[in-house]
């Protein structure tokens, strides 16, 4: 069996030995050098750079976000090969824009960068998908869609992931969504119980529609009728 060559984090030359950060200021401090590089590379597409509690936020144009992340991933001087997280923030103050956030890490340079793009009030909730750059973005973006309703353009399979497909109450992490949901408990339970737990071999949910024709005749009939199996 073949052996892989070990990839070491922090392999770039001349890095200091990492240490636990102490007495980090609230605002200000040293920004991640990638922020300057981004400004030099993209100019006006980088709207703002701020350092909060020692973490560098780069606020970018939504239209350029994909290009910027692609550059951060691919450029050897940046090498942000690891996507930690994709998420969004909606503020209690509804006038503030919704932020779409990518947490990126460069293993080679031991850097952490937060890239933000803003969706202004009234604008459609759309963001570019980075699935073509990071495979790990698949479920993270689906979850963000499930919870906020933000559509990631270019994602091949953007469906609800934690809640079920027919969930009718909306997007739970939006600020207009009440903690206990929109419906009464009885109605929520009724809708949940109305689902047949095994009927969802359905082709559209499993996205095996192209395999459907290959299934045996009797199984096709069963699936089509939504009949449960194993009973």
């Amino acid at each position, binding site marked *: *069996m*073949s*052996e*892989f*060559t*070990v*990839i*070491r*984090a922090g392999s770039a030359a001349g890095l200091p*030995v*990492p*240490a*636990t950060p102490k*007495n*980090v200021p*609230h605002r200000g401090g040293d920004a991640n050098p990638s922020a300057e590089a981004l400004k030099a590379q993209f100019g006006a597409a980088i709207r703002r750079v701020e350092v*909060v*509690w020692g*973490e560098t*936020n780069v606020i970018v144009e939504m239209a350029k976000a994909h290009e910027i992340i692609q550059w951060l991933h691919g450029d050897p001087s940046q090498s942000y*090969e*690891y996507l*930690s*997280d994709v*998420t969004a*923030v*909606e*503020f*209690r103050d509804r006038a503030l824009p919704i932020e779409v*956030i990518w*947490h990126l890490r460069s*293993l080679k340079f*031991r850097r*952490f960068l*937060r890239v933000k793009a803003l969706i202004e009030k009234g604008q459609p909730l759309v963001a570019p998908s980075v699935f073509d750059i*990071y*495979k*790990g*973005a*698949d*479920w993270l973006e689906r*979850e963000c869609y499930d919870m906020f309703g933000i559509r990631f353009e270019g994602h091949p399979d953007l469906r609800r*992931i*934690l*809640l079920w497909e027919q969930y009718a109450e909306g997007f*739970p*992490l939006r600020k207009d*969504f009440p*903690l206990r949901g929109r419906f009464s408990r009885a109605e929520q339970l009724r809708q949940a119980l109305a689902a047949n*737990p*095994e009927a969802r*071999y359905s082709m559209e949910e*499993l*996205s*095996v529609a*192209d*395999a459907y024709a*290959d299934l*045996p005749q009797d199984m096709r009939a069963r*699936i089509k009728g939504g009949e449960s199996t194993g009973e």
Partner: protein
Amino acid sequence: MATKRTVEVELSTTGIGPDGKPQRIPLVAGGDGGVALQAPPGIEPDLEGEHMLINIGPQHPATHGVLRLVLELDGETVVRCIPHIGYLHCGFEKIGEYRQYNQIIPWTDRDDYLNCVGNNIAFALGAEKLFGIEVTPRCTVLRVIGMELSRIISHLVWMGTTCIDIGAYTPFLWSFQERENVYNLFEGWVGARLTTSASRVGGMAADIPDGWLDGLKAFVRTFPKTLDECDRVVTKNGIWVGRTVGIGVMSPEEAINYGLSGPMLRASGVDYDVRKDFPYLDYETYDFEVPVGVHGDVYDRYLVRMEEMRQSVRILEQAIARLPDGPVNVDDPRVILPPKHKATSEMESMIHHFKNVMEGPRPAPGEAYVAVEAPKGEKGYYMVSDGSAKPVRWRIRPPSYVNLSAIPKMVEGHLLSDVIAINASIDIVMGEIDR
């Protein structure tokens, strides 16, 4: 069909060859290299490309929770795997927006319930970043002890349940016996076995009681023996090796691109550990090694986890040796309740107590992302504050969620029985995945 794979199946009844032995007939699904043999008489050509859907879960002993896998099989080979999650979605992140920072800590117990103390401390680290608090030296060392103990018990559950999945029952009993020892330690420290809520913003729920360190020393002394016993029955066991070697391989580049973390990433040959590369709690001052695998298969993940437990014991030994005296909680009335006798006798302390309980501490507007090396991988808590006592957004970066998202990549092309081994090797915990 998406997959053009030539899979040989053995037909036992209809496919008897002229020599009386079962004939191997390639079920050819395409022209890319598959040898198109003439099917012998009696074999229906319909068999080509016949696929079967198999549903595992959400209630199944080998899915480690309420995971559901829908598998499309060609013979016994998995052609496609579609994981379904969300059966344990409880709205953690939503409820975090309705709770004060200290009130969120009980929720962190229950998101990754195998690593309760580690989560408590990780959350407290994030909140302290948001408040701009530096904890005391004693608290820092106590937190390291808590984190490493919970790493050990999390890996123990992993080992026990994985051994059951692959067919060994005894290591489960041994590992739960050791877990009971750690449960007793936690119970003596914070009063709960499993859902500990051990930390607070600015300190811990309690200092360790007298004599507690003796119990910890006894555990550190005896635990490696149990580990050696498990090592002896499992590591070179033929069944274990046969079912894990070469299964579910991820290359280092793939592992990074899929965002894997923790033992999953390190078994694939990526030397990345948050404790080493983005240290917290002064981990850089401890002497320990980060085990790295080079094959990226299930067996290497097992070896990495076993070695991590040994390294955790090393860290525990050093932490015991250096545990300083002094207060556990910071001296900051913004976040820490005053002692009870002061709250009832001094006006100022009473006001602090009242404000802390009724209104809750308020951090400055800002945001903080704190990642720690949890047993499953990089566990991140991302908190956004608008200056009120409750966060605007509390985001959990769940390591096993991202790790699980790579399962289709890992199982496709393997046999059905390997799915169980691969799924076990991810070390999923549904409370964290679904939140």
